[in-house]
């Protein structure tokens, strides 16, 4: 069976319907049973004035990383699309408007910068749309029609997703949009009859009807709702804002509420307050907002109050690169803030994990009575994947609160020093368990106490509790496990997909390489990670940061130095970069 691994980009100006067209490609191919990973980028800060690009990688096998070479470029604006040509693959297909709405001077044209060998398909997108619908707005759909005809996509897939997308706007709108698509489809079928390809037509894939096209942000929002979230407190910041917007739309119908606070300090303050009162709440932010939260996060550690904080990382430091991706808040998440303030930090690596980790974060916060930080990043939040997403069953999101036994009524010790370090937590309203939660060092009863013995004892208790939490934290997963590896690659967060693809390709080249996925960032499974490092002759940690933040955290687990691959481009690490580094290390070994 021939394999498909095909990347298509749509590029245009805001207003061209670029993002919509990219979304329809993702949906249609997902319905066709392909694995899809999509990522939109908009280099300009203000989208209304900038270039929009969507990138969709479509595969017959599971796709885990972004495509590096573009096999088809659909240009809705040739001036903008010129910037996309460097990533075009050999013999790529280029679709452009042969009768563009605005005159493009010769030396500004797209065709003048195409690599030799590019296969060009000029289609009058606008004129066909006018013919089909009476207006040129449907240009993006005629373009999709042309793409479908030339590449051999079943047109019914597109017709279905177009219908789904526009059905809320009524039959007439559905009709003219399908007609615009068909106009492009039929034009290309006839005009390019001798150049048609069957890239997608002959491929048999097992379509899983449970597969849904979801972004990381949507998965996070759905998880929060399925976990019974009642309150979301937040302050707008790219790239975390879509989470707030999703919840603002869907929480009210579940009896919940989104409160846009005055800053991130008040957001985490209110999250702690509502968890203190026994109600699940959360906040999501990015680096600059996370920095503001650190004092209160350590308050949650000291006063032992649950909290769920999602940090959607972006380029830093300071305001940094708001619309770019980076994994550079790991140090801040694990160590940020005053004192010995160990807290739980977990990092999903794909959209499906975003869902499950967010649900789990509420339970971990409740049981271990400490802030739980979920680390994602721009790339993970904004990319779309079609994955079999199984929503949490009844009970799977159940509360993990540990309440005090009635026997302790009237002589309750809020911070009782138990073997696990977990002290049963009373909620306001419970008769006979009144206590004051405090961020001052305190006795088991909760009274302020700065004596040397007490501070030593209670610090030990809090850290014991964190060590105990490891048993509820996901173990690192090993891929291509074997007893000895020449290179062992450790990956985390959005980067892991690239690690997996690179390792798989190196193995196909005959090299002894394996991958370890680390999702529990703190506390971490030092034995499992240490054992993986020990059995690997070289250990490589690729990360989207300059300092090698995960590498710094785990380097001490083995005596040999860790090899680092640090990308600070603001863009996802291409699998090929990891693969070359692996093979470079193997060369050193040889």
């Amino acid at each position, binding site marked *: 069976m021939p394999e498909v691994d095909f990347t298509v980009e749509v590029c245009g100006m805001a207003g061209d319907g670029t993002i919509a067209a990219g979304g329809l490609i993702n949906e249609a191919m997902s319905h066709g049973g392909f694995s899809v990973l999509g990522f939109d980028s908009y280099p300009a800060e203000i989208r209304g004035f900038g270039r929009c690009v969507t990138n969709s990688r479509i595969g017959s096998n599971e796709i885990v990383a972004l495509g590096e070479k573009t096999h088809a470029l659909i240009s809705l604006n040739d001036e903008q699309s010129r910037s996309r040509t460097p990533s075009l693959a050999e013999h790529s297909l280029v679709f452009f408007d042969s009768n563009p709405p605005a005159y493009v001077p010769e030396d500004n044209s797209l065709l003048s910068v195409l690599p030799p060998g590019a296969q060009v398909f000029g289609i009058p997108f606008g004129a066909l749309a006018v013919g089909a619908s009476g207006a040129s707005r449907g240009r993006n759909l005629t373009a999709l029609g042309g793409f479908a005809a030339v590449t051999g996509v079943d047109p019914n897939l597109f017709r279905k997703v177009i219908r789904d997308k526009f059905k809320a706007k009524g039959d007439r709108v559905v009709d003219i949009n399908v007609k615009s698509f068909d106009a492009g489809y039929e034009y290309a079928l006839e005009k390019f009859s001798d150049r048609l390809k069957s890239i997608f037509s002959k491929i048999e894939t097992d379509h899983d009807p449970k597969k849904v096209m979801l972004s990381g942000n949507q998965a996070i929002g759905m998880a929060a709702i399925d976990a019974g979230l009642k309150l979301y407190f937040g302050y707008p910041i790219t790239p975390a804002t879509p989470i707030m917007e999703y919840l603002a739309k869907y929480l009210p119908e579940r009896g919940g509420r989104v409160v846009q606070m005055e800053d991130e300090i008040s957001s985490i*303050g*209110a999250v702690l307050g*509502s968890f203190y009162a026994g109600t699940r709440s959360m906040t999501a932010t990015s680096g600059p907002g996370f920095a503001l939260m650190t004092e209160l996060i350590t308050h949650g550690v000291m006063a032992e109050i649950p909290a769920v904080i999602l940090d959607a990382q972006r380029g830093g430091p300071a305001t940094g690169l708001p619309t770019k991706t980076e994994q550079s808040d790991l140090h801040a998440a694990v160590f940020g803030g005053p004192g010995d303030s160990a807290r739980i930090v977990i990092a999903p690596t794909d959209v499906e994990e975003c869902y499950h980790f967010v649900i789990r974060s509420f339970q971990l916060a409740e049981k271990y009575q400490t802030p739980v930080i979920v680390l994602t990043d721009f790339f993970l939040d904004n990319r779309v994947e079609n994955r079999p997403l199984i929503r949490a069953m009844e009970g799977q999101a159940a509360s993990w609160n540990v309440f005090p036994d009635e026997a302790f009524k009237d002589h309750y010790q809020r911070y009782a020093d138990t073997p696990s370090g977990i002290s049963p937590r009373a909620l306001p309203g419970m008769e006979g368990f*009144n206590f004051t939660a405090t961020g001052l060092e305190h006795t088991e009863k909760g009274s302020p106490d700065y004596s040397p013995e007490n501070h030593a004892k209670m610090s030990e208790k809090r850290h014991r509790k964190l060590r105990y939490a490891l048993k509820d934290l996901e173990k690192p997963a090993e891929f291509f496990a074997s007893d000895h590896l020449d290179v062992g690659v450790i990956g985390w967060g959005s980067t892991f997909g690239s690690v997996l693809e690179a390792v798989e390709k190196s193995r196909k080249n005959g090299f002894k390489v394996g991958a370890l996925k680390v999702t529990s960032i703190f506390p971490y499974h030092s034995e499992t990670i240490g054992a993986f490092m020990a059995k690997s002759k070289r250990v490589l940690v690729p990360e989207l940061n300059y300092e090698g933040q995960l590498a710094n955290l785990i380097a001490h687990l083995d005596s040999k130095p860790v090899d680092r691959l640090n990308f600070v481009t603001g863009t996802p690490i291409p699998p090929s970069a990891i693969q070359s580094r692996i093979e470079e290390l193997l060369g050193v070994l040889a």
Partner: protein
Amino acid sequence: MKTPARVLADQVNQIQKSGRFSPRSASLPTWCPGCGYFGIHQGLNDCISSLGIPLTQIVTVSGIGCAGRYPFFSKTYGLHTVHGRALPAATGVKLGNPNLTVFAVGGDGDGLAIGGGHLPHIARRNIDVNYLLFDNSIYGLTKGQPSPSSPMGTKTKASPYGTIDKPLNATLMALAYGASFVARLFAGDPKGITEALIEGIRNPGFSIFHIYTTCVTFDKNFKTWAHLKKWTHALPQDYDPTDLGRAFNEVLKDDFSLGVIFKRDA
């Protein structure tokens, strides 16, 4: 045979003796002897016991400062947060469990300096929190630096030549921020505090109690007991607290008239 009235009186007596509604903690507050905060403590305790609110249904939230220690001196549930963050935490508590009665307490540094950005927002959201602002115009806990409500010229170790910044007026700010219940009170008048609290708790939104008080240890010049007693007085006889325009005028022309300054008509 006891009369029904007698039985009831006995029951009330018993409840009072059991201390079930008395929020006073077993140990005495650790404030300096003579500190104005003892008067506020009495005023709030009397409000709670006279309304008979079960202590388990009350949460007292605070930040950091001498005033911030308050929850340790009360038998309600307590949440002692970090410096300046009592109001956001109280917002979370109240929205998290609306059945609870929530008090937020804190000093002028806590509420007007580091936490000053939260006051407008809890007021405009009208969250049902009762906020007692202990205004002694000094940083007590950190041993006597000027606060945002210190008058110009305040001399402390941190301002040996006198401060040059103008003080903030918390009552005026609360009015401008749209708080739905605003009272101005004096720690030397616990009864006045109790009465205003009883009225303010009924307000289903944000109520602020701006309480003039004294730091006997670090302020020998400005808000001393003697000065506050001399300066403070009741609002005019015909004062109408539902008239916002009049409230502004009153606060602009008189810094020391006490009572319920404003309450929004239901």
